[in-house]
C-alpha cells in the first residue's frame, strides 16, 4: 500500500540481493532450463560415446566437456539474471559489437573444420561460433533501437535495426549459414511484430521471404539439395534424416531401452542436430514429450509474463529472446520429424556444443533478467496521471 501512495519503484530497501533475486526470478523457467540441461547431459551419455570412440577419445569425453560448458553456461545465466535490465542492455550491446566484429573477421581468422562453411574460430581447446553469441546481442540491440524509435523525437531505430539485420544476414549467408541467417531475420521480424508492425507490411515481408527463399533455392546448391530432400515424398533411409525418422519409429512410446539405441552409431550428428532422435529411440515418446513441454513452458511463460511488462525495451528484448529460444527447438525437432526441411540447428541446452550452450545460457540469463517480477505500477500510474 505504501508503494501506491508514494508512487515510487517498489524496492524493499535493504533487502539482500539473493533473496530478492529468488523472490522475483521466474522459478518455473529456471527449473525448466535446469531440467533441459540435465536431459542434455543424460542424452549426451548415450549419444556421444560412439563419436568419441571414432575420434580416439575416452567414451565420455564429450559428456565431460558438455558438463564443463554447461556449468559455465548456468553460471553465466544466473549472474546475468541478477543484473538490472539496464545492465543487461549494456552487456548485450557490448556483446553484440564484439560478436559482430568476430563474425566480420571470420573469413580471415575462421576455420571450417572441413564441413564446408567457415563458421568457427578455433581457440585450441575449444571452438567459438560467433553467430551463436551474436543472436542474444542482436535481440538486445534490435529491441533497444525499436523501443527508442517509439519515443517522441526518437531515432529511426526500426530502419537502423533492419539494416543491421540485413548486414548480418549477408555475412551469415556468405559462410554459408542460412539457418542462423534466417534466425536473425526471424528475431527482427518478431520484435518488429510486437512493436506494432502494420499488417500490410507484414504481408509484404512474407512475400519477400518467399522470393528470397526461391532465389536461394535456385542459386545455392547447398540449399536446394536440402529443400529437394524435404519435398520428395520418399525418404532415403541412408541419409541422416532417414536414420533419425527410423529411430523415432523404433523408439515407440517407451523407447528401446537405455543404451540399446542404434541411431547414435549411424548418425554423425547424433549428439548435436539429431539428439532428439537419440532421445526418442532410447527413451521413447515420453521423454520427447517432456522435452517439448519444457520448451513450450519456457516460451509461453515468458511471453505471458511479458504481456504485463510496461517497458517497451524489456518487452521487445524478452520477446526476441524467448522466441529465438523456442523457434530453435521447434526447427531442430521439426527437422527430425520431417515437418521442416533439413537445417542444422542445435536443440538449445540439450545438443552438444560449447558455443551453443554458453550462448544459450547468456540468452536465458537475459530472458530471466527481463522476466523478473517488477511492479508495473498499474494502479499507481493511473493515479499519477489523474493528477496530471
Amino acid at each position, binding site marked *: 500500500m505504501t508503494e501506491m501512495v508514494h508512487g515510487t519503484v517498489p524496492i524493499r530497501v535493504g533487502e539482500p540481493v539473493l533473496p530478492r533475486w529468488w523472490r522475483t526470478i521466474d522459478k518455473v523457467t529456471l527449473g525448466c532450463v535446469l531440467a533441459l540441461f540435465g536431459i542434455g547431459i543424460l542424452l549426451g551419455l548415450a549419444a556421444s560415446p560412439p563419436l568419441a570412440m571414432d575420434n580416439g577419445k575416452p567414451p565420455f569425453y564429450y559428456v565431460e566437456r558438455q558438463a564443463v560448458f554447461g556449468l559455465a553456461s548456468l553460471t553465466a545465466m544466473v549472474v546475468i539474471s541478477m543484473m538490472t535490465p539496464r545492465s543487461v542492455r549494456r552487456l548485450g550491446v557490448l556483446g553484440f559489437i564484439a560478436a559482430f566484429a568476430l563474425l566480420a573477421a571470420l573469413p580471415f581468422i575462421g576455420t571450417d573444420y572441413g564441413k564446408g562453411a567457415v563458421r568457427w574460430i578455433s581457440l585450441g581447446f575449444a571452438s567459438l561460433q560467433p553467430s551463436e553469441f551474436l543472436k542474444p546481442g542482436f535481440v538486445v540491440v534490435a529491441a533497444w533501437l525499436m523501443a527508442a524509435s517509439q519515443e517522441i523525437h526518437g531515432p529511426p531505430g526500426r530502419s537502423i535495426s533492419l539494416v543491421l539485420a540485413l548486414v548480418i544476414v549477408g555475412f551469415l549467408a556468405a559462410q554459408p549459414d542460412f539457418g542462423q541467417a534466417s534466425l536473425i531475420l526471424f528475431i527482427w521480424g518478431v520484435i518488429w511484430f510486437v512493436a506494432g508492425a502494420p499488417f500490410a507490411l507484414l504481408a509484404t515481408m512474407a512475400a519477400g521471404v518467399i522470393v528470397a527463399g526461391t532465389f536461394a533455392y535456385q542459386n545455392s546448391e547447398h540449399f536446394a539439395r536440402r529443400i529437394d530432400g524435404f519435398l520428395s515424398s*520418399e525418404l532415403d533411409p541412408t541419409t541422416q534424416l532417414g536414420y533419425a525418422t527410423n529411430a523415432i519409429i523404433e523408439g515407440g512410446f517407451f523407447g528401446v531401452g537405455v543404451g540399446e539405441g542404434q541411431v547414435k552409431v549411424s548418425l554423425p550428428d547424433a549428439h548435436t542436430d539429431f539428439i532428439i532422435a537419440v532421445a526418442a529411440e532410447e527413451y521413447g515418446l515420453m521423454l520427447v*514429450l517432456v522435452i517439448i513441454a519444457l520448451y513450450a513452458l519456457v516460451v*509461453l511463460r515468458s*511471453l505471458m509474463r511479458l504481456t504485463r511488462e510496461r517497458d*517497451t525495451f524489456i518487452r521487445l528484448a524478452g520477446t526476441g529472446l524467448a522466441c529465438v529460444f523456442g523457434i530453435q527447438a*521447434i526447427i531442430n525437432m521439426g527437422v527430425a520429424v520431417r515437418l521442416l526441411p533439413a537445417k542444422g540447428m542445435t536443440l538449445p541446452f540439450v545438443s552438444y556444443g560449447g558455443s551453443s550452450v554458453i550462448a544459450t545460457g547468456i540468452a536465458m540469463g537475459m530472458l530471466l533478467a527481463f522476466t523478473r517480477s517488477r511492479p508495473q505500477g498499474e494502479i499507481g500510474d*493511473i493515479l499519477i496521471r489523474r493528477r496530471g
Partner: protein
Amino acid sequence: MKAGDVTQGTIRTPLRPLARILRARERGENPDAIERENIRLRHEAMRDRARQRAEGRLMVLAIFFTLAFMAVGGRMTILAASDPHEPEVSDRLAPITARRADIVDRHGRVLATNLVTHSLYAQPPLMTDPERAARELARIFPDLDEERLLRRFTGRAKFLWIRRKISPEQMQAVHDIGDPGLLFGPREMRLYPNGRLAAHVLGGAGFGREDVSSAEVVGVAGVEKAFDDYLRDPANGGAPLRLSIDLPIQSVVERVLEGGMRLMKAKGAAAVLMEAKTGEIVAMASLPDFDPNARPAPPVSGSPADSPLFNRAVQGVYELGSTFKLFTAAQAMELGLARPDTIIDATAPLKWGKFTIGEFRNHNYGKIPLADVIVKSSNVGTARLAMEIGADRQRVFLERLGLLESTPVELVEAPGARPLVPERWSEITTITVSYGHGLAASPLHLAAAYASLLNGGRRVTPTLLHRDTPPEPGPRIVSEEVSAAARAMLRDVVVRGTAQLAEVPGYAVAGKTGTADKPSERGYAEDKTITTFAGVFPAHDPAYVIVVVLDEPVDTTGPEPRRTAGWTAVPVAAEIIRRAAPLLGVPPVIEPRPTDRLTLTSN
C-alpha cells in the same frame, strides 16, 4: 484497458500549449518544463497503448508457439505410434534391378541363367572379435590375407566388402564364425551352366552398381553386353533371349576344333557353322577359350589377339588366301566373262610390272578351264580373271558380299573388327585380292560371303538370333546358275582338288582351301601359315556353310611338315561335318558318282 480510455483526451494536447506558455512566460518560468511534462504524459499514454497492442500480439505469438510445439509433438506421436519396419532403399534412387533374362539356344536350352547367392560384407563397428573373424575368414577363403583383413577390420572403415559372391557352404562357414559384424547381402549371379561352351558368344557378366541388398548384373562382353539393355529390361517379362546357337552342334564344333588344334599344333583356331539361307550362326568357336563364369581379366601385356578373350572368329582378321578365289570366279561368271569350261591362260609366272605372280611350289598349269583354276587353286588364272574384271567392279562385288565392312553380328566386339582393306585399290591390289592377299577379313566374314554366294545367290546377314520365320531373302548377289556352278566347282575341289580330305560320304561337301603365309615384321613368314577351309554342304542342296581357320598349324604325320590347308584345316572341317551333319538333321544321300556325271554330260 482503462489507461487507453483515460488518455484518450490528453493525447491531442499540444506539447507547447500557447496559453500555458504565455502564462508561464509572464510568470518568468521556463516554458520548456511544460513541454517536458507534456512529453512525459504523452509517453505514458503511448506506452499504455503500445502495451495493450503488444498484449494482443504476444498472445498471437504464444498461440503460434503453442501450435508449433503441438505440431512437433503430434508428429512425434504419429511416428512413435507407427510400426517399425526395416529400412529399404527408396524408389527415388532408381532401384537396382537384379533380374536378368536367361539366354537360351535355338531349342530353348539354357546358355546363361541366374543363380541366387550371397555377398559377404563386414561392418567393423559391429564386430565383437575382429582377430578371430579375420583368422576364420582367412581359413575359409584361402586367398584372403589374415593380416590385411585384420587391418581393415580395426581401421576406420565402417563398411567393407569381403566377397562379391560366396557358395552356400562358404556362407554356412561364415555363419559359424558367429560374428555380428559379418553380414550377407542377397545377390543374383550370372551362371553359365555349360562352362566354356560358346564362351566367346556369350561373353560374360559382372556386377555393376551394387549395394547391400542387391547388385546389378551387367554384361561385359559378347551377347551379354550387346543385349544388355534387352536382358535387363523388365518390360520383356523375363522372356529369354533366344540365340541361333545349337548347343550340341556348338559342343561338337568346339571338341573337334580343339582336337584338331592340338593335333596340328596350332596356336589358335576358329570355326563358324552357319545356315546358308538365313545367315543364322549355328555354332561359332574360337580357341583358346575361357570360362565365362570366371572371366579372366583382359591381358595388360602382350598382343590382345593372343588372349583367350579374343574371339578369333569375329575379331581376328586374317588374309584368308585362296578361299577368295571363288569370289573372282563367281564374279567372272556372273559378268559373263567366263563359264566353268572357259579356258583360262594360267601360264606361270605372270609378270605385272615389277611383281611376279607364281603358283604354289612353282607349278605351271598352262591353259586350263575355269573350273580347274579353282580346283588346282591357280593364282595366275585367278589374277588374269581379276584383271579382266577390273578394280572397281571387284571392289563393288566384295563390298556387296560384306567383306569391306565389319560384320553386323550381334556381338559387342563385332563393330570393332573391321576388315583390313587396301587404301588404294590399284591393279596389283586387284590381282592380289583376287587370290586372298592384301585384304584381311574375319572367318565370320568369309562364312557370310560364302553363304551369300552358294545359297542360290542371295545375300545373307550373319546373325546370332534365332528367328522362327525365315527372313526376307537378301538382295541377289549372283544368279542361281552361277551359284550352282560355283558349288559344282567347289565340289570338284573336294572330289579331285586340294580339299580331298574334306570328303564325308553322304554329305557332298563342297569347299575351298586357303593357305596364307602369316605376315611378319619382314614380309611373309614361310613357316607360319593361316590355313582355311570354307565350304558348304550338301553341295546339291546348300544347307550349311562351314569355315575352319587354324593359326600356325603344322601336320607332322608325313615325311616333312605340311602347313597347307588341305592337310590341316580340311580334315578338321571334315570331322566337324561328319559329326555335326547327323545332329543337324541333314539326310545323307548317295550322290551320283563323278563318272556317272561325266557320262551324262558326254551324252
